[in-house]
């Protein structure tokens, strides 16, 4: 980095948090540099300060958070000391930013073209016609299909990937020297993510810009980075060229993070029982929305004629992108949603035709673990009460249920003495363990896990997956595991079913599906996994 002039060099930067935060400094003594024509990836888990880094460079820190010490030299100008007027000139024109969630970063009431045009009218004196021409050229540049149509569209009329392309077009409008991308692909599906990563790489190469790319995913790092900075607790623990950091990590934390990235090959297959515990046949669910007296009705066939079998003690992974119908299917299994047709046979009973009152009784045999560790626990109940709720509803005396809850706490790896705390006093991973304990409290035959690790950091993700695998053998659990992440599915599932547009396109033993995908969509999914080559190679090394 010394031979090429750095566009941005940060020296000894400190960012102070307000009193009462979990630590005094969001960033401590951070020094890094980004040169033109390179992509610097900043990697870290939640709370590592990586997003604070991006906001500090833009000088867009939340109230009460202050820069304390250090310098940020952007082309010779210290951003720490620059007056606000100077920062306004730089933002958008010289330093641009892409956000994680394009839907919230775009104004829903204005067209895409209008919003990109605004960048020009704020920073330049171009005429209206020139601006329109530039906007269309930009939209073509980011490979939006039909740029004319996209310019006239409102944000909600575009898909997530197209919105992110529009955001990138807006960021690139004034040819910024530095582009900051804060988790730009995290909210997107894998196949879309792969396209956007390719686009960023390509645009960066063409425009010779510097990119500061913030991510939590080492797969993405392997895909896109020239150099890598690893952050933990607001400090840089390691930095260097991508190949060096990925293949020969020096710091223990980096090694731990890389080890926690799930490899993309299935573990050795386990022997599966001949007996099926859960048989799903011909499940369909159609949503009708809008329309008055039969006119203009929008019909969404969320699940189309899905049939699957879950052998006793096995784990069936249902993999798909957003909108594939996998969550609707999961909710049909526990009858949170009533399917239109089909049957779900569990322990010799059909759960689809069961009346409500009977279902409340029988639902203890099939329990669910939810995705969001924050929304899935009632904030007004103590942890022990949350876990004991199910048995109490089914007639266990309160004292017995609470005592059993403490045993379950130990089972899922939580301190039983923490049972009297409220959910907000636990971390995300711990909350997910509480959710698991709640589901296990009713001793279900089948566990439906809907994206149980998607909201967690990789290292926590690995722990929770290990716990699930461990419980599976100890309790003989049969699991239906819903996920969008093929790497996670590869870790834990014996069987995998791939869903697209509400239908199963391929299913079979995990090892076979991953090693030898038959359907074109499965192949596309596997090819899109970020850092796929790295993940496969990394699997062959002893973890």
């Amino acid at each position, binding site marked *: 980095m010394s031979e090429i002039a750095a566009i941005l060099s940060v020296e000894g930067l400190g960012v102070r948090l307000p009193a009462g935060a979990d630590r005094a400094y969001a960033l401590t003594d951070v020094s890094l540099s980004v040169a033109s024509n390179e992509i610097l990836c900043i990697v870290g888990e939640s709370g590592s300060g990586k997003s604070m880094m991006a906001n500090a460079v833009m000088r867009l820190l939340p*109230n009460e958070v202050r820069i304390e010490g250090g310098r940020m030299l952007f082309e010779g100008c210290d951003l720490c000391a620059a007056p606000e007027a100077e920062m306004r000139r730089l933002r958008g024109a010289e330093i641009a930013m892409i956000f994680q969630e394009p839907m919230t970063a775009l104004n829903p009431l204005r067209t895409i073209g209008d919003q990109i045009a605004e960048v020009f009218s704020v920073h330049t004196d171009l005429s209206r016609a020139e601006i329109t021409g530039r906007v269309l050229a930009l939209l073509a540049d980011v490979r939006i299909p039909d740029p004319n149509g996209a310019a006239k569209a409102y944000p909600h009329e575009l898909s997530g990937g197209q919105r992110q392309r529009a955001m990138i077009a807006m960021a690139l409008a004034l040819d910024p020297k530095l582009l900051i991308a804060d988790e730009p692909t995290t909210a997107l599906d894998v196949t879309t993510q792969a396209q956007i990563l390719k686009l960023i790489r390509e645009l960066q190469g063409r425009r010779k810009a510097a990119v500061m790319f913030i991510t939590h995913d080492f797969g993405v790092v392997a895909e896109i980075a020239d150099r890598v900075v690893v952050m933990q607790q607001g400090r840089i623990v390691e930095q260097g060229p991508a190949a060096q950091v990925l293949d020969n990590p020096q710091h223990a934390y980096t090694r731990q993070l890389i080890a926690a990235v799930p490899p993309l090959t299935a573990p050795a297959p386990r022997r599966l029982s001949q007996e099926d515990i859960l048989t799903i046949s011909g499940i369909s669910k159609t949503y009708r929305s809008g329309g008055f007296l039969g006119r203009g009705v929008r019909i969404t066939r969320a699940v189309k004629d899905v049939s699957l079998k879950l052998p006793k003690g096995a784990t069936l992974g249902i993999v798909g992108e957003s909108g594939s119908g996998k969550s609707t299917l999961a909710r049909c299994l526990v009858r*949170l949603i009533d399917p239109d047709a089909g049957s779900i046979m569990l322990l010799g009973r059909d759960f689809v035709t069961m009346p409500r009152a009977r279902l409340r009784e029988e639902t203890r045999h099939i329990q669910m673990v939810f*995705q969001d560790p924050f929304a*899935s626990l*009632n904030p*007004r109940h103590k942890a022990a009460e949350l876990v004991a*709720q199910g048995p109490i509803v089914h007639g266990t005396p309160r004292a017995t249920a609470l005592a059993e809850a403490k045993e379950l706490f130990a089972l899922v790896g939580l301190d039983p003495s923490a049972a009297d705390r409220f959910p907000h006093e636990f971390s995300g991973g711990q909350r997910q363990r509480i959710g698991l304990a709640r589901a296990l409290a009713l001793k279900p035959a089948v566990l439906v896990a809907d994206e149980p690790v998607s909201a967690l950091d990789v290292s926590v993700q690995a722990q929770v997956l290990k716990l699930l695998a461990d419980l599976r053998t100890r309790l003989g659990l049969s699991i239906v595991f819903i996920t969008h992440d093929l790497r996670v599915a590869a870790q834990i599932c014996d069987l995998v079913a791939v869903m697209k547009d509400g239908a199963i396109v391929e299913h079979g033993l995990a090892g076979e599906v991953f090693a030898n995908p038959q359907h074109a969509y499965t192949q596309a999914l596997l090819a899109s996994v970020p850092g796929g080559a790295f993940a496969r190679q990394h699997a062959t090394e002893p973890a």
Partner: protein
Amino acid sequence: MDAIKRYFRSPAAVAGLILLLVVIAMAISASFLYPRDPLALAGRPLLWPFSNPHFPLGTDNSGRDIAAQIFHGARISLLIGGVATAIAILIGIVVGAFAGFYGGWVDNVLMRITEAFQTLPNFLLLLVLVAVFGSTLTTVTIAVGVVSWPAPARLTRAEFLSLRNREFVQAGRTLGMKDLQLILGEILPNALPPVIVYASVVMAVAILLESALAFLHLSDPNVASWGNLIGLGRDVLRVQWYVSAIPGVAILVTVLAVSLVGQGLNDALNPRLKRR
């Protein structure tokens, strides 16, 4: 508790609480300080305040002690405010909870009824109720409660609508909970804080509604209420203005106290709204 600590950090909320405690103290001490019937004749009519040490706040146009009426009136105002608010919030929560939880036709029917109540100006409805059922203290209190429930109902419904599809409610369903257990045990505790805060608004309005009724001589004439006193003072408003002004100040202070407490509760229960 954090919420209590946050409450006491706000000077306005503490001031409101002190004022409210003063009004409550007046209500409690009324029968010790003024054991006689406050509506009994006490001295010469229309004595100005501070002119006779026996009557620090003077006397009204029939020669009744104003101070005694203010102290006893605090009881009536707080009683009507408290009971009417309880009635309004209770009806509101039941209607809002069922409408929000079940949605569909239940929601449609309940919300149309709510709207029917809301489109009528609530004071007009109150006049009709009092005209039909008479103006005893009980009917006035119930009538004030009955005209005040639509707003809490809509608020509860909105909270239930946003909470009913949360994952923790779905989790409750998969555990096999009955609807009533979900409504009371899972959703209501989370929906309650804004409704409690709104109760202070209902209480302030209830006190004002009763006073307005009394001003028109439509409230219970056999109790010493602030509104009745204002109504009496109307006849001598241009010369002996203090007969109306003193109970007016009492109402102002009470309503202000209740709203300040409500605002303080709001900030204490929803700290995130205030900080950012």
